């Protein structure tokens, strides 16, 4: 390592040495369908079930903890579906909606209405009318892709604060549900099939979620040409039971943590996406180190990505020839330290207790609760859930129930 070289210089020359165009690892899955399909690995069983189900107009529920790969799965799934339906020379419209704003059920319907109206506006005057005048949201197609006769749109929403200009057109106060149903019929005529992929559905209040599900039975049930695939962090067992009883979802996919093997493949895929020439190993990581990393990831692709990203960057800056055990241990210390210090003390404390007790679950001992200054497990849940979202905790499920474990990036005090 030459002291005269710039930091960036060090970094870039390492990457070059490793024959990587850039650091490929990132926490969220790539938008580009091609890239995503390159990187995506595993979940074959789930894909086997899901694609036919959606094609047949049945609904799927995908559950899983944060960071376990729901979004990757759903994106990959709809891309594959698009490919396969296009290959059959059939028409289909796939709408991917993430983060639907609003707290009320009516907001949900309005969002769907907007999306559907937008898809029909070129062909239908009523849809155009609605699309132009519906208040409260504006939508953008952030991604469109057409394969054969299959269109895939990713739609994002922004909230607008507006007042009605035309009393005849639907405004913020009108009930969007009947309009939605009508437009859906039209859309199904036009597109043959429609698939709604709704990501992070249960970010809303559970009551709202339940109300939407229970109150939209004809939306979810009544058509062969219309399918929903909904992801969520994980409803409670109960809600699933209800849903099963209501029969909204034909399939209930629970994403379990991935195996180390699978994770290794994903890492290799990521590397290959930026390699100058394809390889089948995880260079610059040694197998030893990759084994360690995939263990630390605890089955979570997001954890894998975060760890790999940081390790690679640190190692690049330090100019290692390869990332072997020594190198890894060296940079891992620093990474852990930085990560831990950036955490607010409260979170650090909770992580520490989680680490000490081997994870926080509903069977947490009273003394440990006392350490966290809490009287009940229930009172901890909100914080645990938000820490899961931050990636600081990971949620695993076993026979004992749900357990929250600290990310390996957390460095417990000695």
């Amino acid at each position: 390592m030459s002291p005269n070289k710039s930091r960036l210089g060090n970094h870039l020359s390492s990457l070059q040495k490793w024959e990587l165009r850039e650091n490929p690892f990132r926490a969220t899955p790539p938008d580009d369908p091609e890239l995503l399909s390159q990187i995506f690995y595993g979940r074959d069983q789930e894909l086997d079930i899901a694609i036919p189900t959606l094609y047949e107009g049945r609904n799927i529920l995908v559950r899983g903890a944060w960071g376990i790969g729901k979004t990757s799965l759903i994106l990959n799934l709809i891309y594959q579906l698009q490919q396969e339906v296009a290959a059959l020379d059939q028409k289909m419209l796939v709408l991917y909606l993430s983060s639907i704003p609003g707290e009320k059920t009516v907001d949900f319907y309005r969002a769907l209405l907007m999306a559907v109206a937008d898809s029909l506006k070129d062909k239908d005057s009523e849809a155009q009318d609605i699309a132009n005048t519906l208040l409260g949201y504006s939508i953008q197609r952030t991604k469109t892709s057409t394969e054969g006769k299959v269109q895939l749109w990713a739609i994002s929403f922004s909230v607008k604060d507006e007042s009605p200009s035309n009393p005849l057109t639907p405004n913020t106060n009108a009930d969007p549900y009947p309009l939605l149903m009508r437009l859906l019929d039209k859309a199904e005529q036009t597109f043959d099939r429609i698939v709604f992929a709704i990501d992070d559905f249960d970010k809303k209040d559970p009551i709202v979620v339940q109300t939407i599900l229970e109150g939209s039975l004809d939306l979810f049930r009544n058509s062969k040409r219309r399918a929903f695939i909904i992801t969520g962090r994980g409803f409670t067992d109960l809600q699933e039971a209800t849903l099963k009883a209501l029969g909204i979802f034909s399939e209930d996919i629970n994403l379990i943590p991935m195996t180390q093997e699978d994770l290794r493949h994903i890492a290799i895929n990521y590397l290959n996406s930026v390699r100058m020439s394809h390889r089948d190993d995880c260079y610059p990581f040694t197998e030893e180190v990759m084994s360690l990393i995939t263990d630390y990831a605890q089955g979570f692709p997001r954890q894998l990505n975060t760890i790999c990203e940081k390790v690679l960057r640190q190692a690049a800056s330090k100019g290692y020839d390869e990332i072997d055990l020594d190198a890894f241990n060296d940079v891992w210390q620093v990474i852990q330290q930085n990560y831990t210090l950036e955490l607010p003390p409260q979170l650090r404390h909770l992580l520490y207790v989680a680490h000490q007790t081997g994870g926080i679950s509903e069977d947490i001992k009273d003394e440990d609760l006392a350490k966290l200054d809490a009287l009940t497990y229930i009172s901890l849940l909100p914080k645990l859930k938000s820490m899961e979202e931050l990636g600081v905790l990971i949620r695993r499920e076993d026979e004992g129930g749900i357990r929250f474990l600290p990310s390996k990036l957390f460095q417990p005090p000695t």
Partner: protein
Amino acid sequence: MLRSLKRRKGFGLVFVRCTPVGGLELIEKVRDDIPQKLVGILELKEPISNLIDLVETFPNVENLKILFIVGLEKSLVEYIRPGYGGEGDYYNLDTVPPILSHLNWQRENYRDRFRHLCFIFLLPQFAIKYMIRRAPDFFDWGTGVVEYPTDSKLIEQESIRLIGESYEEYLKWEPHQRLNKIAEIQSYLDANPDNAKRASLLAEKGNIFIANQQYEEAIDSYDRAVQIKPDKHEAWYNRGIALGNLGRYEESIDSYDRAVQIKPDYHLAWNNRGAILCDKLGRYEEAIASFDKVVQIKPDYLDAWNNRGISLKDLGRYEESIDSYDRAVQIKPDYHEAWYNRGISLKDLGRYEESIDSYDKAVQIKPDKNEAWNMRGIALKKLGRYEESIASYDKAIQIKPDLHEAWYSRGNALGDLGRYEESIESYDKAVQIKPDLHQVWYSRGIALWNLGRYEEAIDSFDRAVQIKPDLHQVWYSRGLALWDLDRYEEAIDSYDKALQIKPDYHEAWYSRGIALWDLDRYEESIDSYDKALQIKPDYHEAWYSRGIALWNLGRYEEAIISLFQSLRIKPDEELIWDATEKLLLFFRELSKSSEKVESIKFVIQTYKDSIEILEQIGDRQRLLKFHYQLGKVFFELGNYTEAIENLQVSEQISQTLNDIPNLALSLFDLARLYHLTGKLEEARLYFKDSLRLFRRLQDPEKSAAATLALGNLEMQIGKIPQALIHLREAENYYQTQDNSERLAEINYLLQILQVA
């Protein structure tokens, strides 16, 4: 006359009317003209009642031929009374001057014992007239009255000599001196001086009369004087003084008015005028005008500044009064009266510190000014400096031990310090000095009451109302003391008395209600409370007690409403909240069995209203309880949504307050609700946590209930192993309790599991 005297032989009585100075002249003349006869002069300097003895002991009386008796009129002056017409006609018809009766009765003795002597009585007109009336026989033996006129110049001279003293001067004289002078003046008056002198002599007489406190006579003299000489301003002035002394204030003022009419710069008259207007008639404005005149004329007339200040104070113009006092002490820095008065005005302004400074000045100058010590004490008390105030009172009492005001104030100050025993001692002293101080008896009663000596307190109160029967406060306090002795009926009588006097005495109505309640006469007690509330609608104590009475009568809804009124007025009173809570629970139990819908609605509304108030005042502990209770009501009604809402609030508050027992209960009930509303997973977690807390609280009964509920739920969800564990646990407990009902339940569930 001289000729006859020369010739006379033997006993004789001659009465000569002359002035004192004329008499002297006559004596000289006789001496000169009749040298052959030995002449003696018996000068009477003071009143006598026996002349013979004096004559007998007169030196060389055997050889005397002529004896002048000078000054007999002095023995008659005392008996002069005004009013019997004409000048000089002063006869007291009731009494005879002893000397005259003596002369009358003893005339023969005179003749017999002094055969050789010729008595020449030199007398003024009035004495002669008196003698003629009251010693007629003696007089008849004389040769009539001989007139010896005095030269008018001499009369004038003498007159001038006689006039010019003020009554203040005469005050310093001995009474007999004053009498003699009156006699003298009268003599000269009888000698017909000119008008000017006559007026002056009369006025002079008036002055002496004032000194003698013979105000009527003084006024009469002045009247005569000003009749003759209307512009005699001093006479008007002194007349005013005399009238003032008699309490004839209006007339007094008229006199002063005349005086200043004549002599506009007569500052003394202005001052006196002002004093009467201020002190006696309460006509402060006019008084101030008078005093203003005084200081206009004589700016350094202290008295006027002082009096002016007092008048202003009486009008409530305290600042101005202080200015007046300031002027006074400017002129005379050690004018303690002004310092004292200044203190009073400052006190009236509430400027107690400064008032104390003024009092301090006053007692610096005059250490024995007990009023100042007393007032100083009062000011200190107002500042809450009780110890110091007592020291001040002590000083006042030292100087004037019978200053009952100070004893009373002392008692009050001790009472304020809570030193009741000592305060009673002080009060005792005060009433010893002046037994009719009802205020003191009352305060004494209060002090005794504070000591719990109720009987004695009542005695004290009795004394007070004996003196002044319309003291409603005392009757009321008396009632309270009787109540403290559990003598409820008598207490009510006392309250009634107070209410007779002051029908809107709401405290009395309230206490009356309490006493009736103690007698279990609930209806009547409510009537009393109602009366109190009519007068004072925000009387929260009355609302509360009314509520309790209604509760006793089984009129629960009205009771709750009453209690709630009390809460609305005074939301931070634990007692009322406790009662309301209890009553609501009680009423709910009742309503459960009767299942009256209206009652439940009413209860719910009350809880909601209570919660509103509790939120306002921020009483979280109680808010928790009320939300919990309301949650339970909804639970029982089957209104699960609202039940959950309320229980969630009580859960939240319990968390923040670290109130484990209430948290456990809230969690348990929420768990049941979640179970009932189909949220099984949530219910499971809640049962689990409630069980955790029940175990922590070491409550086996509740722990068992939670365990059973949890096992039941786990069974429903399909967590069989856990369900089994929990059911067995519960089974163990209920076996020890021999609770067959529960055991049957568990058995049933277990059977289902075995089969499954």
